Every structure is written in C-alpha cells, then in structure tokens.
C-alpha cells in the first residue's frame, strides 16, 4: 500500500524555488497515465464508473421515476420491462437507474466526509508526534468496534434518511483512512524538504498544506475510491436491513423491498439486477484503485 518516497517527493513541485530542480508535474501525471493506459482492467473499470456516473446524472432521461403502481405485478423481464417488475408492478429497471443516483451520492458523500475526518486525524498523528499516541489509540479503538451493529443502532435511533446514512457510514469509515494516511505521513514528515520548510520558518499549517498533504495525496486518491465502494456496500447493507430512506430509491432499498414482499425466492429479477449493479460498482472501484496505485508507483509501473 505504501508509495515510494520518490513518488511522494515528486508530487511537491510547487514548493517554491526547488521546483526547477524537480521534474515538472506533468511528467509524473503523464507517466502515471502512460502506465494506467496499458492496464486494460483499469481502463475498463474507469469506463464502467463513468457509465454509472452518467446513469446517475441522467437518470431522468433514461427512465421515469418509479412511483405509484402498475398492473403487472412481479412480471419477469420482457421488452416492456427489461428488468421485470416488483410487487407493486413498478419497473425494476427504472428503480436500478434511479437507485444508481442515491447509491453513488451516498457513497461519495460518505466517502468525502470520512476522508476529511480521516486525513485530518491521520496527518495530525503523523505531523504532531505528541498527538500520535492518543490519536493512535482512538483509531485502534474505532477500528475494533463492531461496525455493523453500531451502524444499525445509530441508523435506527436517528431515523431513516439519506443524510443519516451518509453521516453514519462516514462515522464508521474514517479510521481506516486515518491509519493509511498516517503511515504515509510518517514517511513524508521526516523528509529533508519538510525539515527545510521548518527551518525557513514556515508555520505548521503552511507546511502541512504545502508539503505533507501533497505527499499523502496518492493514498488519499486511492482511499477515496475504496471508501466510496465500501460506503456503497454499507448503504446497500443498511437499506437491505430496512434502515434506508423509504422516500428514495437505492440499490439496497430495492433488495429490501424484494425480501420484505416474500418474492425473494421466486422473483429472481427483483434481486439479481440491483445486486449486479452493486457488484459492478464495487469491482470497478476496486480494480480502478489497484490500477491507479500500480500506475502511480514507479516500482510497479
């Protein structure tokens, strides 16, 4: 998971006068892109993710919002209903399309929130050595919590809504980010250019902003992708357990309704398609993260 020092240092071309001595930033990005382009799995994953994001953004153009009821209850896939209908006769294809929006929004929002908390804690732990022990204990403690039961408890107490889901998922996802960022930060902080920045009288905030953060940026990029996919899974899990927002469609919510209606065993289309969508997103994000990490790291390039 760790990125080599070379690459970490290479990503700080903005550090004032030393910039001329370092390779220009384009070259790092270009080298990464060159390596990434050679990985078909990575490209395919990126294409799938872009497709899913397009579907999420243009849901209204693809299918009508699933509401009301239809006369064909639990009809199998057909030309009229590509993915069949659910127990109220609503189109499962439309549900999956509109579910993409909520699933991705929850995934991204929870991931961004988790990344912000995780990066703050991780960088603070790496930079301020005296805070490391305390923050380390907090992170370890959070990592050892039984996450799913706690998520269920909090979501049940706070009541079902999209914002509750985002906060709950973020609250239980940041420790992993913090740990990864801290370990990368520990490699960056002792670097000579950080010491140099300190010697010339840079404030802590300035050093963190200009030197430490760019140094840990690659792991943040990977974390964003992986945390998003985990958040989408958590959202699906919570919604499947009935703790999702009943006023919006998500992939987990479709599964939940299928399970509750008792049609799980007979109407396979109500569960297969949302499950495939989840699988597609999670596999694509995971492969993308792996491909990016490999392309970014000169040792695996």
């Amino acid at each position: 998971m760790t990125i080599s020092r070379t690459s970490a240092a290479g990503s700080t071309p903005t550090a004032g006068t030393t910039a001329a001595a370092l390779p220009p930033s384009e070259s790092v990005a270009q080298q990464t892109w060159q390596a990434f382009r050679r990985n078909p799995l990575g490209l395919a994953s990126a294409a799938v993710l872009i497709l899913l994001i397009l579907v999420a953004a243009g849901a209204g153009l693809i299918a009508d919002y699933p509401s009301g009821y239809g006369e064909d209850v639990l009809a199998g896939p057909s030309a009229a209903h590509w993915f069949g209908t659910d127990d109220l006769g609503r189109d499962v294809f439309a549900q999956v399309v509109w579910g993409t929006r909520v699933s991705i929004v929850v995934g991204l929002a929870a991931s961004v929130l988790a990344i912000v908390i995780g990066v703050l804690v991780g960088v603070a732990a790496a930079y301020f050595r005296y805070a490391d022990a305390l923050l380390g204990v907090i992170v370890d403690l959070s990592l050892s919590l039984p996450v799913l039961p706690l998520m269920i408890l909090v979501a049940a107490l706070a009541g079902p809504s999209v914002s509750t889901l985002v906060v709950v998922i973020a609250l239980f996802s940041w420790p992993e980010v913090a740990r990864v960022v801290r370990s990368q930060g520990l490699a960056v902080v002792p670097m000579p250019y950080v010491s140099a920045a300190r010697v010339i009288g840079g404030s802590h905030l300035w050093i963190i902003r200009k030197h430490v953060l760019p140094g840990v940026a690659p792991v943040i990029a990977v974390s964003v992708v992986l945390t998003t996919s985990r958040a989408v899974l958590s959202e699906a899990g919570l919604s499947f357990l009935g703790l999702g927002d009943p006023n919006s469609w998500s992939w987990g919510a479709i599964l939940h309704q299928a399970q509750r209606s008792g049609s799980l065993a007979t109407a396979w289309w109500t569960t297969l398609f949302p499950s495939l969508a989840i699988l597609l997103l999670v596999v694509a994000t995971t492969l993308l993260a792996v491909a990016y990490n490999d392309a970014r790291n000169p040792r695996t390039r």
Partner: protein
Amino acid sequence: MRRTTRTLAMAVGLLSIGLVTACSPSDPDAGGGAGSAERLTIGTTADVINYNPLVGNSRTDTWVTNLMYPRLMGMGLDGTRTPYLGTEWAYAPDGKSAKVTLRDDFTWTDGEKVTADDVVFTIKAIAAEKIGVVAGLIPAFQEATALSPTEVEFTLSEPDGTFLENVGFWMPIVPEHVFSKVGKVAEFANDADWVSAGPYQLTSVERGQRYVLKRVANYPLVDGGPKTAELVFRVFPDVNTEALALRNGEIDLIANALPPALAKTLEGDSKLKLVKVPSLGWAHMQYNLARKPLDKLEVRQALAAAVDYEAIRRVALQGSAVSSNSSVLTPTLKQWQDPSATEYAYDPARAKQLLTGAGFTDGNGDGLFDGLSLRMIYDQADPNIAKWAQLVRDSSKEAGIDIKLEGLERNTYLAKTKERDFDIYAGSWAIMENPPANLTLAFKCDGFINYANACDPALDKLIDESRSHLDQPSQKTAIQAAAKIISDQVYDNVLYVEEFTFAHSAKWSNFLVQPSELLSIVNPQSLAQATTD
C-alpha cells in the same frame, strides 16, 4: 491488498443475497417430518419470548401457549364467542354480576381437575397485579367466587356488557396449584416443567431451533384425543425461508400469514393448500389531531380523499382484502356492521379543493401546498403497510400533499407511537372483535390506544352508553352512531380488512379455520383434529 479482497468478498456476499436467496439448512427432522401422522411440523419466524400465558403476547408465544392453557370461550368466524372451557354464561338482570358454567372433564397434565378455583385464581391475579391486556379490558371487575367446582360468579362495580366476552376470550386459565406458589404471577417465567390443560404439552425447547409438544391423550374436545402424537414448531429466519422449507417438505404448515406476493407464487403448487382466513382487525391511518393542521376537519378529509383505496387492495394486497366502507365496524363482524356506511371517495381534485378552502396555497408552483409536509410513521418490517405507505405517498402527492415516509425499526416505531410522535400513523389492529370495548380503548379521550388524540364528548357518551347495555342488539345502535362520528370526523381512516392466506402441505387436511392471524389454522382445536391422508 487484504482490503481489496475483503471488499470483493463483501460484494460477492451481497450479490449472493440475490442469487442464492436462502440455502435450506440441513434438516435434523428429515424422515419424520411431512407425511408422518406422528408429527406435524410448523414453521414460525420467532422464538417464544414468554411461556407465561398471562404475560406473553407475541404471535409465537400465543400459538404455543394457546395449545397448553384453555380459555373460557373460543371464537367463531364472525367474532362471536363459542363454548370452550365455559359452556354457558350470562349476566344477572341488574348487570352487576355474571356467571359462567364450566366443563367438568378438563384435567391438568399432573392429574388435577381444572375447576372454578383456577378461574377465580387467574382473574384475581390479573386484577391484583394488573397483568397484560386483560387487566385493561375488565375495568368493572370487583370479585370472583367459585359457587361450585364448575360455576364461577363475577361481581362487577357497574353493568358492563363487554365483560364476559373480554374475560372469556382473552384470559387463558392457569393452574392455581402451580401459579399460586410462585410469588408474583406476572414475574413467573414458567419456562420448565409445564403443567397445562390443552391438547398438547410442551416437553422440550431448543431456542432458535424447535419447540416440541406431546399429545395429551385425555383432551376432551376431540373424540379419541388429538390425532397427531407430536407437534414441532421450527424457527426460521423469515417467511421466504419458511416457504422454501414448506415446498421441500421439511415443514407441514407455516404459522405466519403469507405476504400477498408470496401467496400468489404458491398458488399453483399442487403439493400445497392455501387457506383464507378473515381478519378481526383492520389496517388504517390515523391523523394526529393534537398537531396543526390536522386538527382541521377539512385537512383530514382532504387526506382521506387523497388515498386510492381500490388500488391499495387490488395491487398492494393482491386482492386479498375487502373494503370496510371506511367504518370501524368491519364486514367480518357481521352482527355489528352498519350497511349505510360508505367509503371515502378517492378524489385528488376534491382534496385540493378542500385544502384551498382551508387556506392552503401553492405559492412556489411546485404542485405541492406550501407548509403541508406530513410525517407518516410505520413499522418497516410489516410487508403490507410498507407497500401501501408508498402508494399513499404517491397518490397524496397528486393532491398536492407532501407525505414523508418514516419506516421505522419496530421498537422505535412502538416508542414513537406511544409518545404520539407522528403526524400520520399507519398500522393495523390484529383483533378488534368487540366494538364497545375496542372503541373505548381506541377513541375515548383518555383511551390507551387513542393514536389520533381524538377527544369528542359526543363520541365518548355513545361509547359509554353502548357499554351499559348487556346484550349485543341494544349495544348496536349506540355503537353504529359512534362509528359514524369516527368516520365523518375522520378520527380513523380504515383502509381495508385483510383476508390472510395460510399455507400447509396438501397431505394434511381437516384443519379448523378461526379468524385472525393469532387463531387461523394454528388454533388448538385445529391442530388437535388435523389428520394426514
């Protein structure tokens, strides 16, 4: 890379929900299950929480303890009382006392006779310790005396025409010689060495797995004793897995009512038989009158006009429900029903008109009235309500009313209901078979389950008047007038009366259908007389 593997594993795990649905667990009962008259295996989705019949109130609690503890009266399909342990019952002419005559051929499993003393002990314990629902149903009870081993007399503080029916059906009789030695009856767990007097006796329990009951040969209500030697309740995670087990022949009967969608898919299976059972309750929405603007009649009328009742019954319930004509006197209770009742019409235009008349406007032109966003709570685990709640939301939107659904986990839902923390309550009553008693609890100002927070002196007076009569025909006039007020004022919006579907293996027959989910075909008489081909 470990995280990657785990994420992938999670994804595959979640996908398997869709693909594998439910693998049937290995079956320790195999070989002795279906087909053998020696054992009838019943599927349920929950454990017995409480073996004390006076305290337990979950479905599985009731199914199991009903097989062990008799009641004074049973119930016919239309909610009327039938003889059980009691053979005859009547009020004294002044209504201040009532007498029940008992059968003399019931015995406890330890050999003692079931006598009037057991009945006297049971009702006194309930009244003294205020145990369960029964205590709330018998406010007029003062004293009980055993006139002879087969005769009990109850003394009442005032005439109460609901007393006998309530005590007769709702109170399980427990053995005095066991329960009197345990200290506080309400705290008695009764979880071993059961002494019972039903057709079956509980003999062994494996929590989360199975409950085994053995036949009581001298049970008097079935000629020659119960037909099947052993009953087994098996616990399943949900109704989907129960249905698979029934199809595979692992179980003979599903005790839970089937969700309509599942019932439909089982219809064509020749190895199964589906049984229709009428509900004694109703599904409804109640508007919280303590909150603005729901205190305005026009707003409640508008909400009632924004519900597509027909679509709910036809699509969400798959036709297994009947209209109650928006009355709390449902068609199941034929002797109470008011033929002049009519259902609220589904008419979004009229709803809009009513709201405009009440002063609501749509200033921002989004199609929704401004400042009219209502929270509707329901139990998200209830398959039917969770379905029609969505239909109500969507049809209300057409009438310009924004309803936010709050499908809650059961305990949160119960807590919010208790605190009346909602604008609209969506739920259902299981058994409301005695209107004078039920309307007291549900609609009088201080009613225990008055979820609408309705407080209408005229309504209270009618309900009290009906209770003061001792026979049903005289109670009926006042109760019908009360039901009309409830409907006109939209204190309750009754959507439908469900017709439950139960499934059993076609190898079994001779079940006895009783109304409601609690009795259905899992009632003691039915299980005792069922036979295989």
